[in-house]
């Protein structure tokens, strides 16, 4: 019984290491359990139906358990992501018979530019940032400022501005992209 409590205190990395060394099912079980919300959410996104997503969580569990023995998994987080996503996409091809084109993260930019908003900036960066913020549309600027300066969540911003959730996300994403392009452009000029 003591073991149970100790297991829950181990970090994900420790669990992974222990499982690789000793192959005890409890380690894997606890590790995967921690990932259930992530896997379930992902399956909901791609499969669109709760029962399908729930089945997929269980199927991915089996698949991952088997594959762990074959591959030397270094980064469980990213590896599990690709296994789960591929599983769901394959399922989609068989069941839903629709060609699913996945473009979501193509436009997701590197967070690098956005440390600008969080960290101390040189005066050049400050001026560029101020100028570029002004260049954004009202909605983009408000959303970006709420999110990055005031640490408001998407739901908070929806209440504050009346924009829909999808629009808030869109404004932040487009705002970031515009800021990035604008700032890089201005910094290059010097």
């Amino acid at each position, binding site marked *: 019984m003591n073991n149970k409590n100790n297991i829950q205190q181990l970090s994900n990395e420790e669990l992974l290491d222990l499982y690789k060394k000793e192959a005890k099912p409890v380690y894997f079980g606890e590790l995967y359990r921690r990932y*259930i919300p992530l896997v379930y*959410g992902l399956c909901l*996104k791609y499969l669109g139906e709760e029962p399908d*997503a*729930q089945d997929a969580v269980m199927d991915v569990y089996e698949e991952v358990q088997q594959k762990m023995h074959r591959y030397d998994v270094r980064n469980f987080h990213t590896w599990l992501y690709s296994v789960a996503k591929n599983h769901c996409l394959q399922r989609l091809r068989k069941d839903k*018979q629709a060609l699913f084109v996945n473009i*979501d993260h193509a436009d997701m930019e590197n967070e690098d530019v956005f440390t600008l908003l969080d960290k101390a900036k040189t005066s050049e960066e400050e001026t560029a940032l101020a100028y570029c913020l002004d260049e954004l549309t009202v909605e983009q600027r408000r959303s970006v400022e709420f999110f990055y300066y005031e640490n*408001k*969540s998407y739901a*908070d911003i929806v209440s504050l501005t009346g924009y829909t959730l999808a629009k808030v996300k869109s404004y932040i994403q487009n705002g970031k992209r515009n800021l990035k392009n604008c700032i890089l452009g201005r910094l290059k000029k010097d």
Partner: protein
Amino acid sequence: MKLKDYIENRHGREANRLEREAMNDPFLQDAIDGFDAVPGEHVSHIEKLEKRLAPRRKGWDRRIWIGVAAALLLLVGIPLLLRQPEVKKEVNPTISQRQLPVEKDIAIPSIPKDTVLLADKVEPEPQEEEQKTVLPVITAEPAETVAEGRILDETGEPVIGASVILKGGNEGTVTDTGGRFRLAVPKGAKDTLLASFVGMKSREIPLKENVGDIRMKADDLALNETTVVGYGTQKKKSMTGAAVNFTENEDFGEPEFIAYFKKNYDTTLCADEPISIQIEFHVNDNGRVSNIRIKKTTCPALDTEVKRLLLGSPRWSRTNRKVLLNIDL
């Protein structure tokens, strides 16, 4: 903040922090998108899944108990069962003795399985149940021929589940997991076949017995439209072919449709009266509307308008649900 908490409470600094984390973590972002896109009691489902995957120590104990109980039942049960033909024992002592060792041999290895096995032993011939009869294939009538072929996509991969119909006829079929189809066609039919599949350009195929491989191309417009699910669009294409001014950037739901309806309906109908309509319909995966039923209306003349505008509306953002909508003008 844990994802489980975020699902229930999207507000505050901690929520913001998780959302920022998600910008760098596509796994987390996809999961959040999923919880946004599909309504449901997520936390309770997650907890059920966690229980299902809980460590099996207790499970093992239960299994062992079932095994022990089964063994006991067998040990007690077999002598009881064998007592029934006691009368016959004196007449055929050799037969009953022979039965004992045979049954024992079968009994022991099967302890860990379900106790249902007991019933199997009582019946002398369980084999009958295992034989499956294969239905004879119905051969085609001489008045028909068969058109066969295979549907492939642009990359040469088989298209599974594509519909292949005889144009102008009642015959139709669907391609199998290898992309192949076989369609019985009345002899002398001079029509063409029509192959179609979601997201691909439909193709007409001249009717032949051996159609061969047919390549289908992706329908570009459809593909672009199917990429966006519940996350907010990133393309700014404006829709063609529908009488609307919406660009794909904006999301579309009940309030948007009501505004759209107000803008586009034929105002000459029921012009003098207050209009009150209740509609029920289904929003499909791709944001299109189907199964439209007008439940109540003060203006039946507007029925066709309602349907026309619903079918022609921009794609709905929140998909896969039933909608009950009231329009009051």
